[in-house]
């Protein structure tokens, strides 16, 4: 290796670092409080009901899982597809991916009706269930990314990076595809489209890249770590392509729903008459999460602050998208008798209202804080990032 990269831990004074952890401890503590509150009173303490059974915690959970799979893309580009420019951030990419997944899974588990039975969720698996198979996908993903990360950090294992990366790549593909299909295989009118699988791959790429770039920029603000313009330019382009692909799939999905007579009503609901869901779709997902960051990213000499803003927009737009998909998908009535007008004491044929309660939001924020705390601790404890990100890496990727 001509010039090898020197990786080192997060520096800075101890007090400054502990202050950061204490800051992250606030949402973590609030999230823990929210969990025990819901656990004690039951889900009646949330805004969910028997029409909207997956609420705000799921919005955060699915967002984090999707972003986790996407955050690994940069590492995969470096190690599977030999894009040497990404090599310096490959360990960070794997770390962010693992941390986001842990955050997402944590909130998924803590939102169970019987979270005291988590052990049952792990030990009793129904092999026919896509949801249960996902438990295996999660485990395999974490394990393979963990092994890959270890090989990246351990010099003696460096030569096995590529096979480990290929294994991780397949688990990543399995996990993100099955997440999309979880919606795609659902009979509800908003879902019921296999387009969810590729669409979620595009979403995951955008959200994951945005999270990764934000962490990278945060580390650069924390201490002096020069980043080459070339790396930032490539990351920016990658984010731009992902956001563009997300927009493409969203338009394709909504357009085909509208075009087909059997799903036109539900498309009209999402696009025009859905109230908060329509607003979040247009202003959140499309404008804030799509068009605005794309416009920022397309300006060729991009300032770092603008890149950061674009990432934040993509993430907020992503949360809006998850809200529209998850809550909007449940709010639209389930049709039992196509062609007939339904009404009942169980709210058949009605748009179901949902107002997230504070504890649900706190639980979700706690999961985000958990992911951030894992990243902060791991960066301080392990040498994950090079001191200089402006040198080209050696030939070995």
């Amino acid at each position, binding site marked *: 290796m001509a010039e090898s990269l020197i990786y080192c831990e997060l520096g800075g004074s101890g007090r400054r670092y502990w202050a950061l952890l204490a800051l992250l401890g606030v949402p973590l503590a609030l999230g823990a409080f929210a969990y025990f509150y819901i656990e004690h009173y*039951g889900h009646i303490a949330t805004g969910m009901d028997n029409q909207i059974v997956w609420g705000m915690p799921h919005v955060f959970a699915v967002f984090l899982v999707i972003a986790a799979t996407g955050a690994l893309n940069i590492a995969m580009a470096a190690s599977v597809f030999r894009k040497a420019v990404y090599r310096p951030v490959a360990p960070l990419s794997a770390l962010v991916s693992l941390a986001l997944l842990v955050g997402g899974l944590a909130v998924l588990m803590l939102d169970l009706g019987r979270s005291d039975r988590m052990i*049952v969720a792990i030990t009793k698996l129904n092999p026919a269930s896509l949801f*249960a198979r996902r438990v295996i996908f999660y485990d395999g993903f974490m394990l393979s990314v963990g092994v890959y990360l270890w090989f990246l950090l351990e010099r003696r294992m460096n030569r096995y990076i590529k096979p480990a990366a290929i294994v991780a790549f397949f688990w990543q593909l399995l996990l993100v595809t099955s997440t999309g299909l979880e919606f795609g295989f659902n009979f509800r009118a908003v879902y019921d489209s296999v387009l969810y699988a590729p669409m979620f791959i595009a979403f995951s790429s955008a959200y994951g890249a945005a999270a990764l770039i934000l962490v990278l920029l945060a580390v650069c603000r924390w201490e002096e770590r020069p980043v080459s313009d070339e790396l930032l330019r490539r990351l920016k382009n990658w984010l731009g392509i992902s956001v563009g692909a997300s927009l493409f799939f969203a338009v394709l999905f909504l357009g085909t729903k509208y075009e087909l007579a059997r799903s036109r009503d539900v498309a009209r609901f999402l696009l025009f008459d859905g109230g908060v869901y329509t607003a979040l779709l247009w202003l959140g997902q499309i404008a804030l999460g799509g068009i605005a960051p794309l416009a920022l990213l397309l300006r060729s000499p991009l300032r770092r602050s603008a890149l950061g803003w674009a990432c934040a927009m993509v993430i907020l737009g992503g949360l809006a998208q998850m809200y529209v998909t998850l809550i909007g998908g449940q709010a639209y009535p389930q049709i039992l008798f196509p062609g007939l007008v339904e009404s009942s*004491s169980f709210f*058949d044929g009605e748009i179901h209202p949902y107002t997230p309660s504070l504890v649900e939001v706190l639980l979700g924020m706690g999961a985000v804080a958990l992911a951030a705390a894992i990243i902060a601790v791991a960066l301080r404890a392990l040498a994950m990032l090079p001191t200089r990100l402006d040198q080209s890496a050696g030939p070995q990727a």
Partner: protein
Amino acid sequence: MSADRNEGFSRRGFLAISAATLGGVMLAPGIRLIEIARARAPDQPVSGKVRWGLLIDTNKCAPGCDDCVKACATENGLKDTGHPRTDAQWIRKVELKDMRTGRNNSVPVMCQHCEHPPCVDVCPTGASFKRADGIVLVDRHICIGCRYCIMACPYKARTIVFENITDQNPDVPRGSGCAESCTLCVHRVDRDQQPACVEACTRAGHNAMIFGDLNDPHSEIAQRVAKYASTQIRADLKLNPGVRYQGL
């Protein structure tokens, strides 16, 4: 004495009698077997030869009547907590209106006890399961409350318990955090009674609901579905529910 008399019997007569006796012996266990299949001993496991089903004649179902809903709530201990959006409804009356023709219909809808239940397919722990006799149930002992079955059910038949419950019916255990739905009154069926909703409908004189074994060609329900047109809700999904409707 007997020797003399015996000689009086013709050979043909003797054969006829023995054949009849033999036939009776052969037939009796057959009849008995069918009886056992219907009235199962408590220590016998349920049989896959049975497929419990419901036939609901919507023409006989009175629009304002909710006797079946009330009977279900009483039988299964479903209490009104004052939170209608989170309260469980194992059976509900859905009022239907066809805007093109103006025809109105009133239909009781509950768990449709599918042959291929999506709730069972998605359940991560196997808590959602189909009994050999076709009744779809939730094993609350291993339900983790993930609510995926509620998302997957195309009939809105599954609910989850949001609040702590006390004073359950000892026959119908249910508690907060677990998914649930119509059990076809499995505790009654197991002691050879009809589901509470069917009993209430018959008591009210509507006779709109028939419960029985779809696999038994002699049962009333099997004969009715063989003779008259009946449909399933969302038959296009090919889940083959055990609940069928007439007059939809």
